[in-house]
C-alpha cells in the first residue's frame, strides 16, 4: 500500500526520473566519492615509482563517482525500481542498544550491558513482550557469562562498581 502511494507520488512529482532507486543510488555514490576526496585531501599523490598514500583512494573515488553518474543517467532513460521505504524504528533501537552496550561493558560490566542491549533493542520490534524479554535477557546474559568468561576465558568484565566491586 504505502509503496504504491509512494510510487504514484514519485511519478507525478518527479516524472523525469524513471528509476528513483538508481537515481538515489547514483547520488549516494557521488556523495561517498566527495567524502573520500575530502578525507584524502591531505595525502600526497606520489608517482608510479613511489606511489603516495593518496593515489589509490582518489583513483577509486573517481571511478566511484563515474559509476554514480552512469546510474543517474540510466535513471532518466530507463524505468527502474522505486525507492523502498525506510523503517526508522528498527535501526534506531538496535543502534541505541548497541551504543548502550558499548558504553557500559567496560564501565559497569557485562551483567548490566547484556540485558541493557537486549531490552533496548527489544523496542525495535512491535511484537516484543517486555516481561518475557527481560527474563530472556537475564538468562542469555548469565549464559554468556558462563560461556565467554568461564568457558572461553575471555577477559571481559562481568560486574564493576568502581572502588567496591571488580569482577
Amino acid at each position, binding site marked *: 500500500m504505502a509503496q504504491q502511494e509512494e510510487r504514484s507520488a514519485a511519478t507525478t512529482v518527479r516524472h523525469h526520473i524513471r528509476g528513483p532507486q538508481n537515481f538515489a543510488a547514483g547520488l549516494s555514490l557521488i556523495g561517498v566519492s566527495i567524502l*573520500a576526496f575530502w578525507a584524502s585531501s591531505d595525502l600526497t599523490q606520489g608517482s608510479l615509482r613511489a606511489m603516495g598514500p593518496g593515489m*589509490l*583512494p582518489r583513483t*577509486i573515488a573517481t571511478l*566511484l563517482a563515474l559509476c554514480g553518474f552512469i546510474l543517474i543517467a540510466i535513471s532518466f532513460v530507463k524505468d527502474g525500481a522505486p525507492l523502498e521505504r525506510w523503517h526508522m524504528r528498527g535501526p534506531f533501537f538496535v543502534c541505541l542498544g*548497541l551504543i548502550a552496550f558499548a558504553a557500559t561493558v567496560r564501565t559497569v560490566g557485562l551483567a548490566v550491558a547484556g540485558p541493557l542491549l537486549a531490552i533496548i533493542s527489544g523496542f*525495535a520490534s512491535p511484537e516484543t513482550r517486555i516481561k518475557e524479554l527481560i527474563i*530472556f*535477557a537475564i538468562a542469555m546474559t548469565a549464559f554468556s557469562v558462563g560461556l565467554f568468561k568461564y568457558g572461553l576465558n575471555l577477559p*571481559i568484565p562481568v560486574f564493576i562498581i568502581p572502588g567496591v566491586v571488580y569482577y
Partner: protein
Amino acid sequence: MDIISHLALGFSTALTLQNIGLCLIGCLIGTLVGVLPGVGPIATITMLLPITFGIDPVGALIMLAGIYYGAQYGGSTTAILVNIPGEATAVVTTLDGHEMAKQGRAGTALGIAAIGSFFAGTVATLVIAAVALPLTKLALLFGPAEYFSLMVMGLVFAVVLARGSVLKAIAMILAGLLLSTVGTDLETGEERMTFGYAPLADGIDFAILAMGIFGFAEVLRNLEVTEHRDVVRKAIGRLLPSLAELRQSSPSILRGTFIGGVLGILPGNGAVLGPFASYSLEKKIAKDPRRFGHGAIEGVAGPESANNAGAQTSFIPLLTLGIPPNAVMALMVGAMTIHGIVPGPQVMTRNPNMFWGMIASMWMGNLMLLIINLPLIGLWVKLLKVPYRLMFPAILIFSSIGVYSINNSPADVVFTAVFAIIGYGIIKLGFEPAPLLLGYVLGKLMEENLRRALIISRGDLMTFIERPVSAGLLLIAATLLIVAVLPSIRRSRDEVFVE
C-alpha cells in the same frame, strides 16, 4: 613409498589416547567459537595458549589446529543460519546457504557443507602428505607482482558473483576497495581517511564490517517485515541432503576442493580467494546460473569444499617455509615458539613426529567434525524455531560480545552499529553487500602488492606483463571479465545493467 611411511609415522603419533582426546577437545571448542559470531579462532587460540603450556608440544598443536579448522566448520553454520559470515571465506556461503535456510532447507545446506568439507579435508591432507615440499617451490614463484595480478583476478570474481546489476556490483567493489584504504599507510605511516580518529588508525576489522553490513543489516531488514520474520518461513524439510542432491553437488565438491587446495598453498593468504573462485566457477558453468543466489546447492557445496581445502593446505607455507599466511597461522607460529619449536624449512626433518602427527591429526579432526556436526544439524535447525522477537536480541548479545572481544574495545561495537545502518541503506538502494566485502578483503592485499611491485620495478608497469605467472593471471582475469560482462550487454540493450 615415502608417503605411506610418513603417514604411518603420523598416525602412530596422532592416534594416542591423549592426542585423540586433545583433537576432539580442539574440534569441539573450534565448532563452538566458529558458531559464535565474531569470536573466531584468533581470540580463542590466544586464550587457550597458556592452558597448553602443560601439554607436550605435539598434543598442544594438534588441539590448536583442531580449533582452527573446527572454527571453519562452525563459521559456515552461522553463515547459513543467521547470515553472519565470521570470516571472509564464509561470505560466499551466506549467498546461497542462507537462502536455502529461508526456504526450509537449512538441514540440507548444513549437511552438504559438512560432507563437502570432510571430502575436501581428506583430499587436502593427502596432498599435504604427498607433495608438500615441491609445492613450496611454487609458492616462492609468487612475488608482489604475481599477488597483485591474483587479486585483480579475485576482483573479477566479485563481478561474476553478483546476482543483479553488473554496474552496481562494480560500484560496491570500488566502495570496498575504498574502505580498505582507511587506516595507516604501510609505506609512510601516515593516517589515511581516519578523520584523526585513533581507533581507525589500523583500519576496519573484517569481522566488524561483516557483522554490521551483513548480520545486523539482515536483522534490521527482518524487523521491518512483520508477517514472515522468522528465519525459517516454510516447514523444515529433511535434515540431510538426499542422494540426488549429493549427486548434484559432487562435481562442485571436487572442483571446489581443487581450487581451494591450490590457492591455499600461496603464503600471501591465497586461501581467502578459494570460495569466491569456486562460486564464480560454479555459477559460470551451471546450466541455469539464475538459480544462484536463490538457494543453489552447488553454491554451498563448492565454496565450502574450497574453504576447507584451503584451510588445510594453508598449513603448507607454515610448516614447510615457516611463513604464516594469515593471522591464525601467525598465532600458530607463536604457539609453536612457546613450545620450543620454531617453524621453518627444517621442521620436517627435525621434528618429523610433530610434522606428520599434525598432518594425520588433520584428517582425524575432519572425521571428528563430520561426526560432531551431522547430529548437531537437528539442534541448529530447532534453534531456528525460536521466535524472532527473542532470536534477534540473542544474536545481538552474542555478536556484541564477540565484536568486543576482538580488540577488547567498546568502540568496535559502535562501529558495527554504524555499519548496520550503512548495510541497511545499501540494500535499500538496490546494492549487494557481498562484492563490497570481497573488495574490502582484497583491497589491502592488492594495494600493498601493487605498490611493492612498482617500488621494486622502479615504477615500470611492464613488470606485471613481463613476469609470466603474473601475465597469465591477468589474462585469465581479462577473459573472465569479458565472459561475465558480455552476456549482460548482448542480452538486450534495454537490460544492460539490470538483469
